[in-house]
Structure formats: structure tokens, C-alpha cells
């Protein structure tokens, strides 16, 4: 029950931050950070694949509704959620994943955590900006936008994950 409340709070914080703050950041057209994938990234390591996929679906639909993007966030979020288990197995090893715990630097180790965060966010941003760019040309501009936004997203998601990692919750 305690853990359900924690994830409901995480869902609310990441989605509200994205809709009301990051979507309205008008600093630079290349700067479009995505923080809501933090919710799926922080699901327990041993969460079943179907739970992760459905969590990604719900988050994607909510973001599409809040951002008016008609499926774009759902496409990217589903891809991220589906790839989570293989990425975790690759970076951490299947046995450690089976032991569970909330993904964090203390639980996974600094190197593995950074690897996991970067791979997942690159997957998400490539899916999102790749599909969005279908409607436009200007490859180099889109590429710059992908790189800048991916780096910013990694930074902000890392901040959120650090803030939301309980100090005693290594398992």
C-alpha cells in the first residue's frame, strides 16, 4: 500500500511537471526536455513486463491528452516500457533484476545506473523526436534538437530519480 502511494505520487509529479512546466519552457526551440519517463524508469526492478508495459501505456495516454499530441507520447512511452527489461538485463544482469528494488545509484551501482538511464532516455527521445520529425524535413536541425533535448532529459530525469529515491530503499 505504501509503495502504491509512492508510485501514484511519482506519476502525479512527473506528469504535472511535464504538462505545466516543461511544455511551457520557451527558452529555445531545441530545448524540449521529457521528464515523465522517470515514472517507468523507477518502477521496481522485478516488476513484471506486463505491469511496466501497461504503466507506460497509461502514462503515454495521459501525456498525449495533456500535450494534445494524439498518440506521439504513447508510441514513445510504449517503446521505452517494452525495452526496459532487456536493458536492465543487459546493464545489471538477470539475477540482480530478479532480486528487485527501486532503480537507483545505491541499488544498481553508479556505472550501471548511468548506463541504464542513458540507454532508456535515448530510446525514448529517439522514438519521440523521430516520429515527430516525420512531418518535417531539416535533418540537422532535428538531430540537434534530439541531442539537446535528450541531454536535458537525462539531466532532469536523473534529478527526479535522485529526489524520489528513498534513502533506505535499496531493496
Amino acid at each position, binding site marked *: 500500500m505504501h509503495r502504491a502511494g509512492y508510485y501514484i505520487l511519482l506519476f502525479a509529479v512527473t506528469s504535472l511537471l511535464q504538462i505545466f512546466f516543461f511544455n511551457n519552457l*520557451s527558452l529555445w526551440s531545441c530545448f524540449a526536455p521529457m521528464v515523465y519517463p522517470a515514472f517507468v524508469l523507477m518502477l521496481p526492478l522485478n516488476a513484471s513486463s506486463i505491469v511496466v*508495459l501497461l504503466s507506460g501505456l497509461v502514462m503515454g495516454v495521459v501525456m498525449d491528452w495533456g500535450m494534445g499530441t494524439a498518440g506521439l507520447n*504513447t508510441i514513445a512511452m510504449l517503446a521505452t516500457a*517494452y525495452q526496459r527489461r532487456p536493458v536492465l538485463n543487459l546493464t545489471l544482469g538477470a539475477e540482480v533484476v530478479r532480486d528487485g528494488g527501486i532503480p537507483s545509484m545505491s541499488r544498481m551501482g553508479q556505472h550501471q545506473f548511468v548506463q541504464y538511464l542513458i540507454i532508456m532516455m535515448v530510446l525514448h527521445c529517439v522514438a519521440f523526436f523521430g516520429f515527430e520529425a516525420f512531418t518535417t524535413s531539416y535533418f540537422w536541425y532535428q538531430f540537434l534538437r534530439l541531442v539537446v533535448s535528450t541531454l536535458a532529459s537525462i539531466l532532469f530525469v536523473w534529478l527526479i530519480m535522485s529526489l524520489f529515491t528513498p534513502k533506505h530503499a535499496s531493496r
Partner: protein
Amino acid sequence: MYRLLEFIRRSYVTLLFVVFEIIAIGIYSRSTYYTQATILARANALTGGLAGTITDIGGYFSLASENRALTARVAELEQRLSYYGGLVDTTATIDIAELQYEFMQARVVSSSINRARNFITINKGLRDGVMSGMAVLSPSGEAVGYILDCSERYSVAISILNTSFRTGCKIKGDGYSGSIEWNGGSPYEVTMRELSKYAQIEVGAEVVTTGVSHYFPSDKLIGRVESFELDESKTYYNAKVRLAADFSNLHNVILVKYIDREEVMGLEHGAQSRGY
């Protein structure tokens, strides 16, 4: 049958993923800028209040610069008022075109410049008399976009910074018209296409609305020519235009209603449906 069930049991997550992705890609590929504006308008019925509060807090810090812009605008309008006052004294006539529009102020609830399709949400909707097709201008009177969809209390406008946006334009004081579009790149720059090679174009020339699209009044400033060149066929100019409105600092807008829009469009549709 057993093998099929076993296959489904082992790979149902992958099957679900593929099904969900196909549905999402199908919805997205069929969506237009209008679909997106409609979704935003419905979402704003629920989230608009909170977004408005957040914008109010942010807007508080830009009050000084907004006041300066408004003061400059008041001065400009005072000047125009004295001009029309002079016309009345000399029994001259007033341009009837000025009387075809109604103006209304609105506050920007949310807007973006970092997407391929950017929209602007404002805090006025159907109950305030806002309707789709109304022009959206900056407080200084520069073209910003036009209304696509409204809920009771909020409206969503397509921004010039939307790759689906198109409107007619011309060089100020010249008769030849072209088309304005945004390529998804810099939020300070748009492209003017298909302007006749006979147009009087030069760097720094003002690009304004033509007024024939039924969205914008004529002669509303869009931006200034930064560079231009003839296209491959040597018949049209394509030009880079520096936008006059600052989309990254847009807190208030002016809505413009073309009073005769429905009547004029009705006549045009009628003529088209009769095959003329």
C-alpha cells in the same frame, strides 16, 4: 491449438506491445494540427485553471516589460485617434474596413515554441464570444496565429510557429502576395514563398498580412525580410522573414473577429457548390 496457446502465453507482452503500438501509430499518423488543437481544447477544460494560475505567477515577473509595451501601444493608439479626430473635422471619410473588426484582449495560459506543431492556449472561450477563425495578434498588433477550437472558457490557437500554419502575405505597400510558412527550425524566422518576381522586395522590408484569408485583417505586421532569392524557375522569390512578435515572451494577446466572416465564407462556399 496447444502450441498456439503456448506461444500466446509466452509472448503476450510482445503481442500487446505490437497491438498498442499499431493503434498509437495509426491514431498519430491520421492526426492533423486540427485534431491536436481539439484534444488540447478538451484537456484545457480540466487543466486550464491550474495552468492559468501558474502563468499568473510567471507573468508577475514580466509586468515591467509588459507595462512598457502597453504604454507604447497606448501612445500609438492615441496618435491614430487624433488622426481620425482630424478627419471628422475636415468632413473626410473613415476607412470602412476598420469597422469590420471587433477586438478583445486575452491572456495566454500556455504556449510552446519547442515542438514542430506549436499551439497557444488562451483564457477566453465560447462564453466570451471567441470562435474559430479569429485572428490572434501580439499586444503590439503583430500576427501571432488564429483560433482553431474553443471550449466554454478556453481557446486553442495555431501559432505561426506550427509547421501546418499557412497564410497569405505581401510586402507592405506592394500588391503581390506570397505565402508564409514555418519550417520547424528557428522560432524567430519564417519563410515567405512564391512571391512574384515583380514584387518590390528588399532586405528590411516589412512583410504584412494580405487580409484575403478571412483570418487576419490586412496590413498586420508579420516580420521583416532578412534575405531573399529567386527560386529555380526564376519566377518567384523565396525569402527569410524575421518574425516581429516575440513568441518566447507572449503573455497577452489581442483577438480580432472579422464580423462579416461567416457571411462572406457562406457566399464563397455557395458559389463553389454551384460549380463556379
